[in-house]
């Protein structure tokens, strides 16, 4: 299965269309806070943009390892799938992710995890984000 990679962030214009469409499609929400991908600046707007997003860990998957209830299942190709019914809301996955790609949604009491669905790539005007075959 394909995974999301932020491959050309030098070209990012910071429009956040990726975040807006991720939140829309995956969370039915208008707010970028609900997006699984996050575009941040380093050192303000004059610095470069970085994409904080699931790195699609393949063999060692820290977030899945620490999940006490088996709610995060390794996904073929990389990354994890969230089984909502199994999640107990402990937030351990949030702290286990070294790149801070998982954040906790205190409204739904569920972590927001990238599905590698690729909707963000379709709305990236500079093709900074792409779906690629997992290594």
């Amino acid at each position, binding site marked *: 299965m394909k995974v999301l990679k932020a491959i050309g962030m030098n070209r990012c214009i*910071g*429009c956040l269309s990726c975040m807006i469409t991720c939140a*829309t499609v995956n969370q*039915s929400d208008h*707010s970028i806070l*609900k997006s699984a991908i996050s575009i941040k*600046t380093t050192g303000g707007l004059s610095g470069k943009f970085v994409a904080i997003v699931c790195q699609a860990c393949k063999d060692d998957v820290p977030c899945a390892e620490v999940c006490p209830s088996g709610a995060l299942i390794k996904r073929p190709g990389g990354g994890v799938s969230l089984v909502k019914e199994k999640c107990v809301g402990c937030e351990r996955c949030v702290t286990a992710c070294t790149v801070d790609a998982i954040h906790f949604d205190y409204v739904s009491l569920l972590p927001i995890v990238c599905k590698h669905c690729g909707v963000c790539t379709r709305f990236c005007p500079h093709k900074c984000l792409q779906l690629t075959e997992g290594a």
Partner: protein
Amino acid sequence: MLYENAIKVVYIDLASGKIEIKRRTDLNGFLGGVGVASKLLEETMRPELPPLASEQPMILGIGAISGIYPLITKTVAMFISPLTGEMGESYAGGRLALALSMAGYDAVVIHGKAPRPSYIAIDGGNIEIKDARTIWGMDSDVVGQFLRDHEEGSGKRSILRIGPAGEKLVKFASVCVDTYRHFGRLGLGAVMGSKQIKAIIVRGDKTTKIKDVKDYFRVYQTIFKAVTETDLMAKYHDLGTSINVEPINALGALPTKNLTANSFNGAEQISGEAFAENNLVRKMACTGCPVGCIHIGQFRRKFDDGYEYEAVSVGYDYELIYSLGSLLGINKTDKILHLIEAVEKTGMDAISTGVALAWATESLMKGFVTEAETLLPLAFGDSETYFQAIMYLANRENTFYHVLGEGTRFAGATIGGKDFALQVAGNEIPGYHTGYSNLVGLTVGARHSHLCNAGYAVDQSIKTFDENKAVDTLFHEEVERCLLNSLVICLFARKVYNRETVLRALNAAGYTLTDDELTAIAKRIYATKLRIKEKLEFDPRQVELPKRFFETASIHGTLDSSVAERMIKQYVEKCSILLTETI
């Protein structure tokens, strides 16, 4: 707010620190943006007091569907302009609209004066007036750096700030929004300075469930495609607005050396292509805009003997290339970027600054002022001198620079040389000497900007000039833009957001409105603005247009002041009819 059927307004009283939030259903008929902000200005302004009296309000407003569709990215600011003394209206992009929307406010009304230098931190749950004594006096860019580190909310916030010019009440001081965008025109920076507000930080921390995802996302995608896959927006992304330098110059409409000429022999060296080839390093976007018209130019500067260089990056656009380029006779891209850096740091409107300096240069040449007053041998083409003059202007260095900081109209009237003070109703002119539609458009336009009614575009599109038709077009455009600005759509996207698209976008977000209702809203807003202007005793027929406009030929030849006067009169009659309509 979205899905709430009410306009949520937060009132901040800086003197008492009192915060009040009101849900106003009575404002629904204004839709949002400039509509709501105009109404709030009408309610809270004090026409009998000076523009910078602490009682005067400063209002920020976003639209009904801000932040959820591509290019609905702007925020409107309304205030009494210290530059013109009448209605102030200015727009900025950046992340502000999205941050306000995510904080849950349609409009912010700030009045009073803080007892000490302060900044305001706004989020959905809390509004605080905080100590800004340490950052008072700082350049605009440096304030941004400190607040970014000091305050939380990276990635979902917007930071507005003023530079030293705003603190010193230079009447055309600007407000910088998120480093590269500005409330540039008409002196909002001085309004903030007069209230002792150095900065405003808005943090968006709310979520909003979409009511009808399918319908909304279908409309979103249609608009996204129109802006990214058709040629409607291509020029804004590719070369950006600077693409206009050469064509406007070729038409003979590029104000040059204080409009002593209508074309510049250095235009090719400062064209959009020249900037792209020499300096362009990056393009950026306002949040929610996949076009990305913000063009960042970089240049390096030697600051000491040996190999000592520093790199400077600033945003550039057509208007800045005109005002700090051709108007000052400057024909090198690096030098224009250098001057842009100066207005950025000090926090002044680039157009007004360029016009003021061009006027000062001609005044010095003609002997209205002496070098003892200007402190510098101001001369067209000399960017180093202009850089220093910008610093003097922001610092109000001596009596001359103090007067100049009151605006070009004031300087011309006080010192002499008003015939070549390039302003209309007190606002320094944008870079289009195209003809009657532009000149009349600037005079009657609600904020005396080329963006009020696009007279400059009318002049360029017509083959034969018909004054009645031109007046009709200006009036119609001014009304229609009230609607676009009530949604606070980026006007670059005005061709994408036709009535049909606006209705679909609104309907998919839960606003059931008809085309007729949109027309009524537009008229209601314009009528409100006209009432405000009347209360502030503005009458376009009383505007004294400088002689220079009628001396240097435009695209439509040398203009005749009596034609312009006739058109203005005719326009005012149309306004009177609108004001008698029951809307």
